[in-house]
């Protein structure tokens, strides 16, 4: 007999992601991923000034605001063939890197770690043993026994209040929880420290972007930060040096804590390298442009079909036709209709809602289903890391090696790159990418300082919109994966606008030919020990860093049962 479970919502944010899984003999045999909220924000943009699109699109998503601002200005610049001053590229690159570091740390420690870390178990730990254990692997100054003792006391006091807050409804004591009390305690200590650390990353975004959560400094043609070597009111060299202090603090944490924790936790859950691969076509965008036209990038991107790194094909520049011509979106299984049969290219994309019930074999999601040359593709840090390794990107390769070597030492057997095609591999890849982002943040900081030193203070090229129709697309390798904005501009006004967001690639429903998306494919074969508490399903879904763009977050007084289980 098979059991069907429905998890709704998977994200706290109301009405977002629903996952259905059919379970036979303790394993998932079929899965459906469904976006539960109509996402038609593109319609708001039609008829507007393309120079305003970035400010509106950064409201699409509740978690990653800046990424839409970046993709949007790039799309309009691509349509105009407008070059961007070097300083603007560097400042954008620093915002991109700082935002990604913030996002990755928050995701791992505050969202995903709790799938693997049993917080309540940490109360039983011996803090001295916990400190001794972690000090074998890292010389991070906050790994001492005093820190572990304090952490445990803090946790005791918090649990004692009866208000577990972020830990409420965790699957404590679940049979799939495997870390020792000591490792759990170390993880809780780092959870608390991560909170301070992610604030450093956020400060960098605030200084450069003038404001968070919604940055103010973006502009089609560059950034609006005036640069000066003497004025107090603008981006000064003094302020830039203040940023460097934040960068150094972040670097210590990412390299001495995050990378080690991922390896340590991953080694205990090594069985999770066998689950969750799903769609193994990996798509990522190059990013961190270091020329004005966007033809040279510090971070490569491209496409790997079928998990075979030897078949890597690069995406080479902004506007590259390899990406530009390869993307289509199907609505065969989505609650939309198109004016004609088959999938549509984003330039010709339509957003006409057509709601039916949840139909297992028909329409069941508000997300569209994107494909790359007709194939499903996985996006995200794993795709980015594998593409970078395939492209011979040295820093990425070095951090991958470091993580895999640490895991190999911990499990006492050689663990290779193949282990990354998995649930736990996505976490490892995110940590690797986070470390690379730090190096890129620092490198772009240096480039900016050097360029200002040469006397170049330009940050903006004024856009001029021609009569008639132009079109362009912008891509950005965001924390959740490749994001692209596509726009058609007619007589200086937006005629069409489509955002193809990372979570659409990963969480989209079946495509035109019935091929499951990455979420759906990755769940098949997952073990589920207890259908009432489908921790394992959440592990795999959370490994993608789910965020269905368009955050609606209403406070809801009703408390519903999130997991429904029925026999089928």
């Amino acid at each position, binding site marked *: 007999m098979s059991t069907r479970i429905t998890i709704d919502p998977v994200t*706290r944010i109301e009405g977002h992601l629903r996952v259905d899984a059919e379970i036979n003999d303790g394993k998932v045999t079929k899965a459906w991923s469904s976006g539960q909220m109509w996402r038609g924000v593109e319609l708001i943009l039609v008829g507007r000034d393309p120079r305003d699109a970035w400010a509106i699109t950064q*409201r699409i998503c*509740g*978690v990653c*605001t800046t990424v839409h601002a970046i993709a949007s200005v790039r799309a309009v610049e691509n349509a105009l063939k407008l070059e961007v001053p070097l300083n603007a590229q560097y400042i954008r690159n620093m915002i991109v890197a700082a935002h990604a570091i913030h996002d990755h740390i928050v995701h791992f420690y505050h969202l*995903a770690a709790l799938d693997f870390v049993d917080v309540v178990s940490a109360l039983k730990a011996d803090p001295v043993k916990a400190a001794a254990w972690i000090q074998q692997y890292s010389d991070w100054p906050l790994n001492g026994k005093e820190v572990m003792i304090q952490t445990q006391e803090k946790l005791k006091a918090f649990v004692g209040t009866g208000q577990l807050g972020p830990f409420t409804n965790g699957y404590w004591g679940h049979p799939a929880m495997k870390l020792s009390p000591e490792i759990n305690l170390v993880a809780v200590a780092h959870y608390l420290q991560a909170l301070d650390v992610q*604030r450093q990353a956020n400060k960098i975004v605030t200084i450069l972007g003038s404001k968070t959560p919604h940055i103010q400094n973006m502009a089609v043609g560059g950034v609006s930060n005036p640069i000066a070597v003497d004025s107090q009111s603008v981006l000064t060299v003094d302020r830039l040096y203040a940023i460097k202090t934040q960068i150094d603090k972040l670097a210590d944490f990412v390299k001495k804590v995050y990378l080690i924790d991922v390896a340590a936790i991953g080694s205990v859950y090594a069985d999770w390298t066998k689950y969750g691969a799903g769609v193994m076509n990996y798509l990522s965008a190059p990013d961190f442009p270091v020329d004005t036209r966007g033809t040279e990038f510090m971070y490569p991107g491209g496409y790997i079909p079928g998990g075979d790194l030897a078949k890597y094909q690069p995406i080479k520049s902004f506007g590259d036709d390899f990406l530009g011509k390869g993307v289509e979106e199907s609505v065969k299984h989505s609650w939309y209709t198109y004016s004609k049969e088959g999938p549509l290219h984003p330039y010709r994309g339509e957003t006409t809602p057509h709601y039916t019930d949840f139909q297992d074999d028909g329409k069941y999601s508000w997300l569209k289903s994107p494909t790359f040359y007709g194939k499903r593709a996985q996006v995200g840090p794993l795709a980015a890391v594998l593409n970078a390794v395939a492209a011979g990107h040295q820093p990425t390769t070095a951090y991958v090696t470091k993580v895999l070597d640490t895991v190999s030492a911990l499990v006492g057997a050689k663990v290779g790159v193949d282990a990354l095609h998995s649930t736990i591999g996505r976490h490892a890849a995110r940590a690797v990418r986070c470390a690379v982002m730090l190096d890129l943040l620092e490198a772009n900081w240096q480039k900016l300082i050097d360029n200002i030193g040469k006397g170049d203070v330009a940050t903006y090229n004024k856009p001029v919109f021609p009569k008639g129709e132009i079109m362009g697309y912008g891509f950005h390798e965001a924390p959740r994966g490749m994001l692209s904005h596509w726009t058609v501009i007619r007589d200086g006004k937006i005629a069409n606008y489509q955002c193809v967001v990372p979570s659409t690639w990963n969480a989209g429903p079946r495509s035109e030919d019935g091929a499951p998306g990455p979420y759906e494919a990755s769940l098949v074969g997952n073990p589920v020990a207890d259908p009432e508490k489908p921790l394992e399903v959440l592990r795999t879904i959370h490994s993608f860093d789910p965020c269905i763009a368009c955050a609606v977050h209403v406070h809801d007084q009703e408390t519903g049962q999130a997991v429904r289980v029925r026999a089928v």
Partner: protein
Amino acid sequence: MAQSIRAVVLGVGNILLSDEGIGVHAVNELAARYDLPPGLEVIDGGTSAMDCLDRIAECGLLLIADCVHAGRDPGTLIRLGDGELQAFFRTKISPHQVGLSDVLATLALHGLSPSRTVLIGAEPKSFALGLEPTPELAATLPAMVEALAAELTAAGVRLQRREAPVAAE
């Protein structure tokens, strides 16, 4: 006279989805109508509460403006104090979602909670696509702004009404 407490007014919601954004509209309007004294910070938090954590930490009063589903008539104003908020923020499924409730809980864990938290909410009518709230909610907006101002005044924050509102952002 020195400001007696540090207060933060946080507007949350998505302004692309009509009434979803009422909290953001309310705080922008508050900043447009009143001179904000030192020690009072007004934040358009959008839907990114986690990014505001730094500024919320250890404040004397956190005043949240948002829409609230309470099954009342659209536009009804709802005030929730500390005790009521706990029950309200019960997460549904897992500890994994970073929303406002998680931010508050995280602050509690760190011992950085605001001394007091109050939520002023409005019952929404529609989350249809649109930059403007529905007429019902637009009609409620002035009362919502005054409710926020009254809450601040009661807490000892000295608000000065501007002679003419300045343009909201």
